[in-house]
């Protein structure tokens, strides 16, 4: 069992994975409560444009994708709030636009690009020390932002008009949530890939919802399950020699199904 910790890449993957699991597990509770499950998918796919631009220009892919994801999140917010477009339609527009820009940019890239596959489906071997520190530092800033704005984020999630009447400007917290969710999703791309990352945002909360009655316990359980899914998924992928991203997601789905069946039988 300890053999797994002999490899630097596994230690980096487990550390980075645990950090993004805390972020996505926590943010997922807001995403689920606000009925924005499509957001994770949309941001992740749209960030292909940022990664493609970075690969083309020789820039660092993750920081470029983070900047691009912030722009995408602001565009989704503006489309949703300044036009009559619904949230899912706004995400749909930005999702496909980002993908299309990414495909066009990659068209200009000469030769085979093996790294691109790792961004699409995740590859823990590609997580280097720079990625690890990027995830830890950016993730820490996001955690501080969530902690200091937690009450207002919950208030605007459950009762926008009540929050407004209490003196809060809900739009500030909507935009904050969009941006930190977008950044967290991009930080997880090397772990599980663009195609699968949204599951890490949704599955832990879907599981936690089955067993909790308060938002506090819902959040704690979602974060714990999220970390469990990522660490267990990484260990399984190592011993079964399977792709890490897909194994993590299937571990999450299996835990959710077990949780659902157990809850059903308990009734």
């Amino acid at each position: 069992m300890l053999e797994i910790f002999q490899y630097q890449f596994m230690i980096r993957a487990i550390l980075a994975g645990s950090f993004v699991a805390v972020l996505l597990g926590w943010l997922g509770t807001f995403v689920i409560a606000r009925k924005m499950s499509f957001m994770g998918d949309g941001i992740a796919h749209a960030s292909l444009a940022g990664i493609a631009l970075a690969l083309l220009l020789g820039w660092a892919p993750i920081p470029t994708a983070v900047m691009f994801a912030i722009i995408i999140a602001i565009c989704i917010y503006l489309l949703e709030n300044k036009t009559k477009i619904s949230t899912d339609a706004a995400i749909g527009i930005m999702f496909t636009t980002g993908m299309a820009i990414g495909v066009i940019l990659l068209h200009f890239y000469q030769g085979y690009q093996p790294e691109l596959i790792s961004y699409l489906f995740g590859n823990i071997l590609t997580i280097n020390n720079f990625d690890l520190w990027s995830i830890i530092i950016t993730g820490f800033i996001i955690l501080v932002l969530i902690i200091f704005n937690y009450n207002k984020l919950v208030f605007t999630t459950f009762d926008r008009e009540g929050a407004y009447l209490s003196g809060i400007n809900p739009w500030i917290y909507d935009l904050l949530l969009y941006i930190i969710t977008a950044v967290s999703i991009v930080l997880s791309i090397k772990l599980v890939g663009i195609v699968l990352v949204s599951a890490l945002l949704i599955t832990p909360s879907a599981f936690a919802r089955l067993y909790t009655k308060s938002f506090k316990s819902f959040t704690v359980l979602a974060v714990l399950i999220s970390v469990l899914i990522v660490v267990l998924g990484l260990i399984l992928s190592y011993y079964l020699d399977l792709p890490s991203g897909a194994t993590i997601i299937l571990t999450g789905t299996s835990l959710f199904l077990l949780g659902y069946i157990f809850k059903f039988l308990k009734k």
Partner: protein
Amino acid sequence: MDNIISVKNLTYKFDNYEALDCVSFDVKTGEIVSVIGPNGSGKTTLIKNIIGVYKPTSGIIKIKGEEPKKSRSIIGYVPQRFDFDRSIPISVYEFMGLEKCGKKKHGCVNIKESLKQVGLVDVEKKSLGSLSGGQFQRMMIARSLLHEKEILIFDEPSTGIDIAGEQTVYDLIVKINKERGTTCVMVSHELNIVSKYSNRVLCLNKKKICYGAPETVINSKNLKDLYGISAGLYHSH
């Protein structure tokens, strides 16, 4: 008594659709004012302008002499529908404690006491989604009691509630009004309730049809103008 709410020549448009046309009325401190009118007559639009969620296309609204945005903290609002996923776990205690009182959060004792005042006992640990329609409305009223709001606005408080629950909610509104002097504005379709409990009634159909004491306003002619049908109040003898 002073006017706590003053609405002058309020017009509100959704793009080119005029939802409210030059509506003017005042609400005095401590009154219960009801707003009646057919579906699509602009009742909820009026309420959202008063609380400051919508910005008037033209006209002026003053709450205690100030713009709604500045004085919004004295208003408690109980919406017609509460759009949240009932399967998301949040306890009654957590929900009621979301609005901070100064720099402090509300303690469990305050929340329990507030719930008790509206007839809800031992519900603070329950999930919000497990409350019935009537319990939910009473919990929302309890939340506004916590903050001692000067104005309470109810948008169809009896929507989705059975007759017993409906009576409880309206009795509670009257009790708060009498005991605390809270000004209450409520949108309602229940003409008998409106007639029984309100100091004044605003008949609205995009424009102000009439405004005054229920006994002078709720009559066959005005109801015909308002709803386009012959209607009246039920009087038991």
